[in-house]
């Protein structure tokens, strides 16, 4: 039986950004799975959720995106257009609760070799081991890049302080046969 879901590359990072480059053009779709934490980081200057931003091919092509998020009490939805970075998740919180924060993100990019616009989907869960329910969120994200080139690189960054050390990123390729 042919293997149709294959690990291309992975890393456990200490960097502020992660880039998968020279992505082979031998698959149909791409999947990124990320496990962020368990150690978050504390930046007292920014009591904010840390968003995961993604761009492809070194920010070639404008990106738009729509997302919904919920924390168990409040739901919200928003749209961003004409940007260089696509919001693909929330993966920790840059406040004192962050040490208890664990997040996972999955990004699915079908038909990444397409030479017209390409869509991207992501879902994220973020949980804190605290009694404060507002420190948890789940969300779904849809994005589109108008780049007309096949995707050969994907870069991920985090708002404010970067990506927590010890976070794992996995890039998988999917073949249709």
């Amino acid at each position, binding site marked *: 039986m042919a293997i149709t879901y294959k690990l291309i590359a992975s890393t456990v990072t200490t960097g502020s950004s992660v880039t998968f*480059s020279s992505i082979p053009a031998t698959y149909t779709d791409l999947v990124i799975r990320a496990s962020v934490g368990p150690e978050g980081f504390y930046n007292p200057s920014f009591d904010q959720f840390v968003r995961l931003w993604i761009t492809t091919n070194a920010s070639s092509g404008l990106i738009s995106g729509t997302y919904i998020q919920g924390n168990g009490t409040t739901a*919200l*939805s928003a*749209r961003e257009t004409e940007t260089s970075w696509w919001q693909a998740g929330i993966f920790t919180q840059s406040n004192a609760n962050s040490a208890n924060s664990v997040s996972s993100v999955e990004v699915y990019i079908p038909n990444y070799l397409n030479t017209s616009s390409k869509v991207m989907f992501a879902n994220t869960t973020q949980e804190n081991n605290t009694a404060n329910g507002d420190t948890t969120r789940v969300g779904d994200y849809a994005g589109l890049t108008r780049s007309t080139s096949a995707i050969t690189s994907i870069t991920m*960054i985090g708002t404010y302080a970067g*990506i927590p050390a010890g976070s794992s990123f996995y*890039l998988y390729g999917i073949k249709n046969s």
Partner: protein
Amino acid sequence: MATTLTAVEINCETGEVTERPLTAEEISANEAAKAQAEADAQAAEAEAQAKAEAKASALAKLAALGLTEEEAKAIAG
């Protein structure tokens, strides 16, 4: 806690992993893009939050007038 801005790149063809400090130009470009994206996201979320709070306030006022929750939600949408 990230203090040094570094970029980790994984070459999917060779498997080589390189980690290097970001250049000043990269930091500047990334920060500008992130700041704009973050500002856009926060504005959108603030708008959504304001709408939710306005709706909750309207429902509370309707309830104070004697409407049931079902009746109030039928009006407020």
